[in-house]
């Protein structure tokens, strides 16, 4: 049963390799099919976790003796299973979009392999229970993302990728330093063992490692002041990719924070949470303002990710089960919305006179596709947290948990800042669908756009999750409760009774 954990990693991996061996015209469909299977497997994973009510644990190679692991352990608990499902859902739709896209980059023989490896890296990083293995998977993720952006049709892609890769290398250095420091202190890299040991006694080195890990995850989740790579990178990546990067890949950092405060550094959690609260609020204000200030639709959405992730961090920062559940709901909903918005932005750009999402370039382009306007408007509402979309559910839950956690000042600030979301989303909508162009420009014959099944499906989901929110909230509440007790995770991985007896 525990082998289910391997499927979301191995299916894309195998698919990615088989893709290398087939003629170009088959690749798109094969990749999409593989992702569908992989998505199904991650759905199976979550339902199994739901059924067992505890974590699935797989000691790869079976290196598990006398109640403790000696190899690499994969752990699928509520948190990782939920995040894997979220990621693969969005990634699958990303593949669907790519399959219909007209970008040059999609035609490259290696495109789908690279994209698929991105999936492997993300799923693995979410499922692994070993710190160093997390580093390895994260590197796979980073390299795949870097290449995909470097070869993007956007001619700034390479520059963005270059900067991102440098920054990620530094982040990797942080992570390795942390690994070393923790191994020095506790002689293991298994997160469950580490959690147990740190719970008993936190050495100064461990605390240093905490700082380093925090920094690493802040880079991953593009949190101020580690965010510099993000606007460039997410704006320049090929649409299909940036839609997934800005929606789910940044959530790896969020996942990391949750592991830090609920498994590795439980006693130090208040400190981490205060830090997150601070950077979260800064991120919301900074991201919102920058999104208003920028001149490119994709870039605007990238900046808005800074702000939206900020809301999640504030939720984690409050640290009550309710607020963590709210943060998870927010993360899930944001993934859907942001992916949809970026895909639509890409579609709009590909209909503009020049293939660019620059506002001057896409003004009034919407009139070529009024139907898309409806979806974009709903997406904008969701992003701004207006009912009856899932964005409203997220915002309501976060605010509510804030009241329950008596975090009044953050609440006031994020309330004010969330008006900014309305400003930039509506401005963008009005510019693309309401404004008009002078004659000479409209004379340009517009190119045929991309297929829009994926974004429309995502907007559909957003709307559905706004009306029928209970299942998601139920799962996230379960997750938050599970995260309440670190011991549950530890017991699932280690045979604590046996260890206690010896």
């Amino acid at each position: 049963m525990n082998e289910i954990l391997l499927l979301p990693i191995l299916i894309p991996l195998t698919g990615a390799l088989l893709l290398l061996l087939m003629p170009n015209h088959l690749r798109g469909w094969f990749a999409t099919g593989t992702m569908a299977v992989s998505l199904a497997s991650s759905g199976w994973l979550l339902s199994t976790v739901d059924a067992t009510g505890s974590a699935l644990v797989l000691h790869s190679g079976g290196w598990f003796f006398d109640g403790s692991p000696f190899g690499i352990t994969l752990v699928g608990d509520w948190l990782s299973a939920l995040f894997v499902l979220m990621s693969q859902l969005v990634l699958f739709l990303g593949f669907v979009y790519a399959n219909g896209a007209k970008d040059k980059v999609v035609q490259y023989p290696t495109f789908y392999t690279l994209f698929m490896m991105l999936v492997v890296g993300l799923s693995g990083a979410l499922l692994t229970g070993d710190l160093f293995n997390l580093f390895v998977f994260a590197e796979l993720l980073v390299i795949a993302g870097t290449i995909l952006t470097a070869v993007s049709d956007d001619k700034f892609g390479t520059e963005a990728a270059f900067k991102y890769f440098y920054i990620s290398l530094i982040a990797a250095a942080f992570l390795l330093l942390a690994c070393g420091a923790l191994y020095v202190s506790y002689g293991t890299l298994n997160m469950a063992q580490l959690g147990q040991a740190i719970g008993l006694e936190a050495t100064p080195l461990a605390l240093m490692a905490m700082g380093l890990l925090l920094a690493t995850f802040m880079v991953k989740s593009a949190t101020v002041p580690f965010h510099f790579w993000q606007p460039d990178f997410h704006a320049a990546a090929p649409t299909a990719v940036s839609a997934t990067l800005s929606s789910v890949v940044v959530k790896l950092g969020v996942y990391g924070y949750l592991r830090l405060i609920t498994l590795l550094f439980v006693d130090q959690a208040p400190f981490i949470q205060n830090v997150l609260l601070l950077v979260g609020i800064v991120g919301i204000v900074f991201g919102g303002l920058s999104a208003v200030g920028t001149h490119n639709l994709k870039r605007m959405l990238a900046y808005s990710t800074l702000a939206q992730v900020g809301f999640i961090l504030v939720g984690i920062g409050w640290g009550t089960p309710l607020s963590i559940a709210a943060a998870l709901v927010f993360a899930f909903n944001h993934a859907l919305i942001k992916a949809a918005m970026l895909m639509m932005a890409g579609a709009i750009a590909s209909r503009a006179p020049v293939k660019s999402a620059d506002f001057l370039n896409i003004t009034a382009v919407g009139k070529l596709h009024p139907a898309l306007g409806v979806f974009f408007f709903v997406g904008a509402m969701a992003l701004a947290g207006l009912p009856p979309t899932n964005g409203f559910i997220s915002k309501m839950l976060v605010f509510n948990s804030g009241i329950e956690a008596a975090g009044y000042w953050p609440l006031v600030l994020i309330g004010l800042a969330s008006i900014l979301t309305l400003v930039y989303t509506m401005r963008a909508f009005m510019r693309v669908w309401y404004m008009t162009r002078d004659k000479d420009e409209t004379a340009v014959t517009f190119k045929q756009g991309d297929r829009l099944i994926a974004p429309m499906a995502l907007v559909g989901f957003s709307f559905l999750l706004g009306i029928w929110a209970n299942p998601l909230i139920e799962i996230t509440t379960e997750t938050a409760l599970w995260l309440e007790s670190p011991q549950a995770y530890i017991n699932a991985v280690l045979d604590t009774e046996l260890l206690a007896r010896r």
Partner: protein
Amino acid sequence: MQIALVKDFMVFIVAISLLWLGALASWLLRHHLPADTRRGWILGLFPLSSFGIVLWQTLMLGETAVIHRTTWISTLNLDAVLQFDALSALFALLVTGIGTLIIIYAGYYFLNDDSAGRFFAYLFLFMGMMLGLVLAGDVITLFIFWEGTSITSFLLVAYKYKYESARAGAFKALFITAGGGIALLVGLLFLSSIAGSTDFATIMASGDLIRGSNLYLVTLILVALGAFTKSAQAPFHIWLPNAMSAPTPASAYLHSATMVKAGIYLLARFNPALGETEAWFWLLSLVGLATMLIGAYLGTKQKDLKALLAYSTISQLGILMMLIGQDTEIAFKALVIGVVAHAFYKSALFMGAGIIDIETGTRDIYRLGALRQSMPLGFAIIGISALSLAGLPPLFGFLAKETLLATAVHPSLPEFVSWLFTAAIIVAAAFKLVQAGMILFEVFLGNRKDETIQHRPLPKLVFLAPALPALMSLGLGILPEPQGLAEFFGAAAAVSFGDKVKVSFALWTGLNIPFALSVGAIGLGTVLFIQRKRLIAWQNSLLSWSFNGAFDQLIWGIDRASTLSTKVQSGKLRFYLSVMIVAMLGLVTISVGGFNLSQLATLEDLSLQENPVRLISLLITLLAAGATVLIKRDFFAILALGTAGLGVAIYMAVEPAPDVALVQIVVDILATLILILALTQLPQLQKSAAERLNGRFHLPSFIVAAGSGLLVTLITFTALTSRPRTSLVTPFYSDNAKALTGASDIVGAIIVDFRALDTLIEIAVFSLAGLGLYTLMRFAANKHQDHPPQAYINPRVQQFGIAGPQTSVYLRSMAKILLPIAFLVASVHMLYGHDQPGDGFTAGVIMSLAVGFTYLIFGFDEARQRLTWLQPFSLIALGILLVVFNGTMGYLLNGQFLSPIDYGGLLSITTLPAGVKLSSGFLFEVAIGLAVLGSASLMLDSLARPSALVIQPVTESESVPERGATAVSFFAKVFQRR
């Protein structure tokens, strides 16, 4: 107030969905519905029927409110609740009743405009939201509909989106109302968290609890903010005049009868929970007072008929807000009457204004005039409504003002407040009289001012829609005491007052103070009206600070701040990295803040046993590394780097870590080579330009570097001094490696067995790098014409070795021999990687180096011809798939993924020469070797001649598929062999 739960509440859901059905119908049938007068009548059936439902329910409504709840989010036990009581009924009747008239009216307004389907759809959507809002019985349900009205009104105001004014008006309205919406949401959440439930019944019941809570004030302010923004209270009133750019039917509906009343409704509804306190009284009264005066004062300045009406609406809303503030029976009586009265005459006036607009083509009251001849009906209707606006007897508006004045002089108020209010109300009333007069005299009486205006009459039936409400306001005024109605109004008032309210419509209440006051008001008004020219001149002479200006300032401020915050993204990577590292150091410092650093490591436990080789290696590394900074020429700096790498290798060998040392050497060579290769690819000028940057001392970078160096020193020192430590894993490895994996090289065992998953992903990463480089150089670079122009490339380089000229026979034959030798060495590495230094990676690199040498000697083209068997894609795929296969076999045979298998044992090949073991480990090493070879050869392929495609352009589609095809067959063969 009792609550009764009833089952058959579906009727109200039907009533709401009927309106949305209307939206659907008018959108789907937008091309099929006739664009003439019939359209309005047909679509009018939808709101009419839901009006019927509401009316029917109202007649059946008793003392008790009926509520209906359906579970929405069970996890949060959050329900969707509808509640129907007298107050809801009153508003619901207005919403649906006037809605019907508006739809019919819109049919005429958009006569022969077949693109108006969109407008009808939006309007119906809004109606549904509005009806839901007044029927909601739960704060969340209420809020959802509340925001719904904001959004739909945005769509309606922006209906004529071609015009800048429409877009700006819509945006301003949305910004203000939705901004207030956020405040409202938080306020409602506060409210429900205090009351412990989200539904009205509980909240209204726990009024004392709420008023007692220490969060009362903030809750009140937040909720009030929501109401003020929605109901255009000063200073948020500015959105309403701008919203006049909406088509008139929308203005007549949203901005007179319904949406602007939402805030009034909200506060009236929550009076039992939030009201009856000092704060409540002062907040609402003062804001209302200000709004009333501002509206009245600014109204008279307007030229545009609709703008004038908008300001009089604002004024009226201020009055209603004031009324809620008072905690007296009579105030709530006045409230209900005022709401209804205003809804009637104002919608009539707006519709009339719309007709005038359509028929004459202008709304400028100073261009219009003498319309009494051309549109007598309109004169009658607007006349009545205007008099009602002026608050003259015998009209409904008179009642409203009467009761209002009565409220103001109510003994329960402090003396001076009472006088203040009275004075204000009289002034406002006077101004409203002037406004009414302006409508009548400028537009209908007098003589024509502008001859250019010609008159295109609409069908007479258009006047039906405005006529009905106008007559109502007349009728309610003059009919003698309609008892049932009075009771209904009383009940509605009672809901918000929380106690019985007696309502009477008696016009003549005797010669009491209110009457005297209203006479005074009328007198003052008349004077002002006669002197209106001077009045307006005086108003215009005043240097006026406008709230709109303030709003624009706000938006400007936001934009300014945004531009500043985007400046942070300076594009300078070095700046980004420095900030990051500093932030990291900061995080680490505050993380360990609690401890003093001496705890990390102490100089006592220094062991003084020296190891000369180590010292030397360290010295080499340090000097060489330092040299890379100091040396000016990049080429030599790279060589120094290579030396540093070798120093590291020696150190590793002494550690002792032979495997690592070996790989380090190999990698060091490779890295140096690639770096030099890259250097050669840079244009000469650029290189020299860049070299001029070298050796400049940069203090910030130095500080950052020093800080991070200190951190690493600290950690390393602690690590070293705390040796020997217990590792939870290593002892196990050294004890069981041989037994469990059959490997005597523990590191190798960890690589291919214990931590096989790491290795699997690691080679995936390496292969990906190769694929990436290939894609970058072969396709991406071409797409953007990145390759240097032809002139750069020495054409001979294309045919022959990198050196350019024809390479000697000796070299060529040497290269021919070197390749097989390299493969032999590599295979040795793979075979014995388990028992001695060296592993698949080393093997792969060695092979790739040989391949690289071949490229060097034979040049790109010939090398490609010689190495046809070298299919990087298939090698990579084969390699990694082999590992996956290996792992799967492990699962099939031992039930554990990636567990070691002794294939030799399985196939009973026990005795192989030279101690070769056919274990999974061996397969693993081979797999690594293949993948690395594939990837590395891709790198060489791309780097050796990145600009290959400049000479012979190859489109993406070709060159790869047939490679793939061969790969498929090759792949098939491989598996047949298994």
